[in-house]
């Protein structure tokens, strides 16, 4: 049994048809189940591109991405989509909730999109998750009526709806004030500890990165450092 959750082997990504720009140069690393990792680096270093590749939203130009030991390059678009939906959750920078729906509907949307028909079980799951992120009183509010911090917490709940093994978060606190940002970060940490969900968090904030178990730094499309975070050093004995 392969104990890697996600494995990148020499992954590159080029953009452009005539003038080819190589955004990622031979990236290789692995993520273990339950790991809480920060991905840092300056703007334009390829963090988002890497995140989209990891999230299987995009395919690499060369190299292999193995999800639970399965080569994703060999999967068809449809299987890949299903696989992604069941394994990976997303928290985007601009929350990216669906404004036409309520908080509860947004949270159950991934399950609904997968199964096609709502049932009580997914309603209960959505309500439970919203309760865990402290929004049990806003279940039926339109997401447009929520504050930025609340919206991002709904987005966290949605990312966890399918009980994914890995959640990818692109600057989840980037647009929030410090207090809301801390709240959201604490939630991510909470779910990581409680459910063993692995997280990969793209962030600019060195303060947040320091609170992760592992910090991968990307500069100009290359990994320049991959070290244990401050949190790992503190928590290492207990885990």
């Amino acid at each position, binding site marked *: 049994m392969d104990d890697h959750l996600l494995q990148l082997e020499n992954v590159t990504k080029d953009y452009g048809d005539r003038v080819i720009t190589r955004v990622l140069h031979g990236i290789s690393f692995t993520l273990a189940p339950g790991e809480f990792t920060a991905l840092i680096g300056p703007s334009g270093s390829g963090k988002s591109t890497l995140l989209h590749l990891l999230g299987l*939203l995009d395919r690499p130009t060369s190299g292999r991405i193995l999800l639970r030991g399965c080569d994703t390059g060999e999967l068809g678009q449809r299987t890949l*989509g*299903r696989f992604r939906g069941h394994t990976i959750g*997303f928290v985007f920078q*601009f929350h990216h909730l*669906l404004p*036409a729906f309520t908080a509860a*509907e947004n949270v159950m949307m*991934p399950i609904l*999109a997968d199964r096609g028909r709502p049932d009580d079980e997914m309603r209960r799951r959505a309500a439970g998750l919203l309760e865990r992120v402290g929004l049990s009183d806003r279940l039926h509010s339109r997401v447009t009526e929520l504050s930025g911090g609340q919206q991002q917490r709904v987005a966290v709940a949605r990312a966890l709806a399918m009980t994914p093994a890995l959640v990818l978060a692109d600057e989840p606190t980037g647009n929030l004030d410090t207090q809301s940002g801390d709240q959201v970060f604490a939630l991510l940490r909470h779910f990581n500890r409680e459910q063993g969900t692995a997280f990969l968090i793209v962030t600019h904030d060195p303060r947040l990165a320091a609170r992760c178990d592992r910090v991968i730094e990307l500069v100009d499309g290359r990994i320049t450092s991959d070290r244990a975070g401050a949190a790992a050093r503190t928590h290492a004995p207990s885990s």
Partner: protein
Amino acid sequence: MPFEWLVAIRYLREGRVQSLLILAGMAVGVGVIVFLSALISGLQVSLIDRTLGTQAHIVLRRPDEMPRPLLERDGPVDVTSHVERPAQRLRSILQWQQMIDSVERVPGVLALTPTVTGAAFARQGSANRAVLVRGVEPAGFARIIDVSSKVIAGRFDVAGTDAVIGSELANAFGLTVGDKLRLSAADDRSDVFTIRGIFDIGNKDANERWVFVSLRSAQTLLDLVGGVSTIEVKVADIFSAESIAGQLSARTGLEADSWMKTNTQLLVGLRSQNSSSYMIQVFVIIAVALGIASVLVVSVVQKSREIGILKAIGTPTRRIIRIFLIEGALVGLAGSVLGVALGAVLALFFSRLATNPDGSATFPVDLNLALFLRASIIATVTGVAAAVAPAHRAARLNPVDVIRYG
């Protein structure tokens, strides 16, 4: 509610202005179709009704007498011959009882009746008028042409030496029910009839010239004892009259004239009316479909972020496509309900405008369930078809693009 329906309905509710625009376009389109169809088919039904109110669907008669030259023109002997067409006498259909039996068995034939029809003079004092004597069996004839309901005085009864005449003839001779009328035919045969009824069949010529008598009286008067001159036939589907006439002619050897042949002009008129109405409808549908498609394309562009999110959270492409097709179908269906109401109101309003002197509609508009169903199906299919291109546009969206650029 399934996922696709939930999202489609929510998006329609969300994009209020767009949805209303599409609905309005659809309603106007369907309204035009319903209005036009109701008007035209109402007009046609009333035209055909009027035409067939005074004639049988098919009339069978004995073929014209033709001389048979003893020498054929292209035969071995070279002759020049002039073949003169003889004057046609009134002759009976041979073995007409057997003919009736065999005509009755032809599929599509509803009713038939033998009649004796021939020319005569009506005399009243020194007044003298050419009339058409129609010897009928009242019960059988009523199933071919409904005269009884058009009788304005007395009743339709031609037993013995009774007769029923038209209103114009009654006026001309100053006749009322109970009066006597002398009819004379060729060779000085003549008879006196008692008038039992006066009809107004809505056709001046018929009102002036038709005199209904019993089959037996007509046979005597027209020197056709035991014979009949024509067999009049009613068919189930009036538009198959021509093909049934062909079958009857082949089966009996008689000459069969359908109403379609005797009213070619009317039919050509109706057909061109139909085709122009179809053309208008097709262009209306195309215009509506283009309108819906363009509004939906705009809504796909506006919603591209949300479509990207839906894809990123794992919504299969086929579900995305279905969302838009359902939106198209829903506006089509809702628009058709509004459109049917609009068209029906317009048609009824129009039929109020065009009235006869007595206040009744000149022609009834033909609003029926089949028309409504047809319009709704056309609208729904149009809605779905119009949504195909926008739906595929949505399906092609790359979630990465919309997520990256917010």
